[in-house]
């Protein structure tokens, strides 16, 4: 079965939003710990991060949000953040406290393969990543590999990147770990197109927008539509 991962920015509503996303069919959740200067993010997540910081979502508050989310849902929870947050908190202490709060793994958008080897985390690979480096990332990754499906920052695009197919093929040739594709995937059609290539999808910016504008029920509906698009694909294959 194809996996659907949903990104939510940490905030007061996040535990309930997480429950809604899981009710809609999310298999795992990434919880954004906001950073003031998020290099990998486009405008939607950057602005969501600014709002979260303005409402006090500092590291301690994010860890509390994680624990409250863990109390609501059983799926894997993955804090997604930037190295500066871990530098300030301490890598080891961050790992321990986040795991105690219910984290399953981590994603650190600006922490390359070579750095902080003691922190188990989901590694990212991009269309620019050479095969040998993909192999190394797959070796070191925690559970699955995050395919950055385009050269660019997070955020919706008109269609799934043409770069994704090649990245999936190159990844498959060097590893058996599950491949989840993210960046630029926002509609059910795009979810289906990406899931046809990869083992699952990650949706961030659009999920953050829907959560903001349409609330719990809207997010559940949206995730259900993504889920259905991805499952129909599996069903049509089986048929």
């Amino acid at each position, binding site marked *: 079965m194809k996996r659907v991962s949903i990104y939510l920015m940490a905030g007061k509503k996040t535990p309930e939003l997480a429950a809604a996303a899981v009710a809609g069919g999310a298999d795992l959740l990434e919880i954004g710990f906001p*950073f*003031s*200067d998020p*290099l*990998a993010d*486009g405008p939607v997540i*950057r*602005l969501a991060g*600014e709002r979260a*910081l303005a409402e006090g979502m*500092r*590291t*301690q508050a994010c860890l509390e949000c994680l624990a409250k989310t863990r109390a609501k849902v059983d799926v894997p929870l993955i804090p997604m953040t*930037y*190295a*500066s*947050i*871990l*530098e*300030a*908190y301490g890598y080891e202490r961050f790992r321990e406290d986040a795991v105690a709060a219910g984290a399953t793994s981590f994603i650190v*958008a*600006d*922490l*390359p*393969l*070579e*750095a*902080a080897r003691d922190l188990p985390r989901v*590694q*990212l*690979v*991009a*269309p*620019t*990543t*050479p095969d040998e*480096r993909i192999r190394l*990332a797959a070796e070191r990754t925690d559970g699955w590999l995050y395919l*950055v499906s385009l*050269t*660019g*920052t997070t955020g919706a695009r008109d269609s799934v990147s043409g770069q994704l197919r090649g990245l999936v093929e190159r990844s498959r040739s060097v590893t058996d770990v599950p491949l989840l594709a993210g960046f630029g995937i926002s509609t059910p059609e795009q979810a289906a197109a990406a899931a046809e290539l990869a083992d699952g999808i990650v949706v961030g910016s659009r999920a953050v927008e829907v959560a903001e504008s349409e609330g719990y029920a809207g997010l559940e509906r949206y995730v259900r539509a993504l889920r259905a698009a991805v499952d129909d694909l599996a069903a049509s294959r089986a048929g």
Partner: protein
Amino acid sequence: MTSVDPGYFGPYGGRYVPETLVPALDELERGWREIKDDPGFALELEGLQRDYVGRPTPLYRTERLAEEKSVYLKREDLCHTGAHKINNALGQALIARRLGKQRIVAETGAGQHGVAAATVCARFGLDCVVYMGSEDMARQAPNVERMRLLGAEVSPVEFGTRTLKEATSEAIRDWITNVETTHYMIGSCVGPHPYPELVGELQAVIGREAREQILAAEGRLPDAVVACVGGGSNAIGLFAGFVDDSGVRLIGVEAAGAASLGTGRAGVLHGARSSLLADDDGQIADAHSISAGLDYPGVGPEHAFLRDSGRAEYVPATDEEALTVFHLLAEREGIIPALEPAHALARALELDAELVLVGLSGRGDKDLATVLSR
């Protein structure tokens, strides 16, 4: 991570960037290693430095500025485009050409690096996009016009502090998006490896010349070498000439409201681990300085290393101190300095030393409106 890792200065430096950029940084590093050992490159760079930039820049002994000591100014303000930034921009344009990149992105604060980038792009026929905070565009309007005249696109950054920090982030995001065709011409000795080293080596010409010139003029090395530090490229370039001379004090002067080294903490910003203005949670704090070129919460990783090792000292100067010296240099020597090196001069003048060499990193035309409005 240990201190022997390439790309680190002690515990500082490294490559803290999204994965998309790592191969581009590898490519840049390979290109840089090839080119810097290539005699053809050295010859071309030297020729351009001489004929286009106007190097070597003079080392000028001030006449009326200080009474009890000899103060020499390394006149980077006399470089083409009016600041040391052109040294780096020119070298990086040659690297971009070697790497086959036709498009350049750059960030700028005061506009000096943006103008230098636009200038070399015009010279080499490269496309140029400069990201600049809208706040800085308002306070440095003449430089915006200059960049446009030179054929660059100036792209306003309308969020966050609307200054250099956000402009740098947007330039990096552009690079992530257009990495196949684009070279990121970073303006200071900051950013991911190999930029701090590469920019430092391109600016080291300042220190090489200054060392030769002071020996020729005085027959000895200076007691102290003083330079302003924002990102720190003019200081790292000037210090490079004297860092092995243990008798020469190296003094970096930061803006008091942007003292990344004086009051900062270890953190990660714009691709490198360094000393930063950040809060307990690692969120980057706003810097404040009258001088747009020092108005940055980070600093080059090599400076953090030089501070920790004790080889260099870093001290602050306030807006008011810089303004006082700005007027003093104009009235006593007929030289209008940029506000950035005015910070360095403010500390240099009160040093207990006989022979002091100060990096005059740029000229002050761009700051007239700021100064006259005070």
